[in-house]
């Protein structure tokens, strides 16, 4: 299912992690009490931050590879 293109593959991984993070966030919003708050901060927040970082890393590495090929 994952693309063979390395940039697209990274974007797909970022997307999957972000979807998991958003699903976790939705579940936390449905829940009540301190455990839902902790899960939001510890799980949903973490997944979203990791997903965003993977996306940014994919962009940086894509630019790096492009500059190397043009040299």
């Amino acid at each position, binding site marked *: 299912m994952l693309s063979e293109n390395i940039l697209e593959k990274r974007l*797909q991984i970022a997307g999957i992690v972000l979807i998991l993070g*958003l699903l976790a966030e939705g579940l936390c919003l449905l829940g009540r009490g301190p455990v839902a708050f902790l899960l939001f901060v510890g799980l949903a927040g973490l997944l979203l931050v990791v997903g965003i970082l993977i996306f*940014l890393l994919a962009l940086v590495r894509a630019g790096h590879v492009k500059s190397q090929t043009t040299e």
Partner: protein
Amino acid sequence: MEHPAVLLGFLGFSILLIAVFVFRPGVTRSQGGKIVAFFVLFALPLFCLGVGFSAELDRSKSTQFCLSCHIMEPYGKSLRVDDPMHLAAAHFQNHRVPADEACYTCHTNYAMFGSVKAKLGGLRHIYVYYLGHPPKAEDIKLYEPFNNRECLHCHAGARSFEEGAVHAADPSLLPAIKANKVSCLSSGCHQTVHDVATLGEQKLWQGAGNAQ
């Protein structure tokens, strides 16, 4: 975006948009696709994170949130004691504090980073509740003595406070209260706050919008 249903709908919409890039990664090959990918895979999740955190933080201030721990139930009941001498009950029942944020209004610290300190205290509560040895409800004590600053946040400058018969009787009393040298909760003043030990003997108010 305060309403959870609206936020959930927005989260669902975001998931659908992200899913397009997961199942059709080829759309990022075009210039327009790259721009849309930036919004969908960066800006949108960041926005969802911020809005979700704000919603969770708001909810964590609610009376219902504080009383969701079993150990806090007697404190929720103490807000319904039918006795004006019970400080917390009188504040809650007369809406001197917002009924839906009753605990937070008095128990937050009205200094810089007070909310952060309150949240860190809340994390400590969760740790003790789930992993430690929670005390009996009547044995729960504040980490620090209650600071008059929290009362004066609302009462300072109010006529009933500044010109109240007891407060004005001794000229040295008001400055001492304002300097936190004499506690508002001193014996003989507003000493009964949450008397959970005698809750079984108290008559409870059954008005509308009660706490649990």
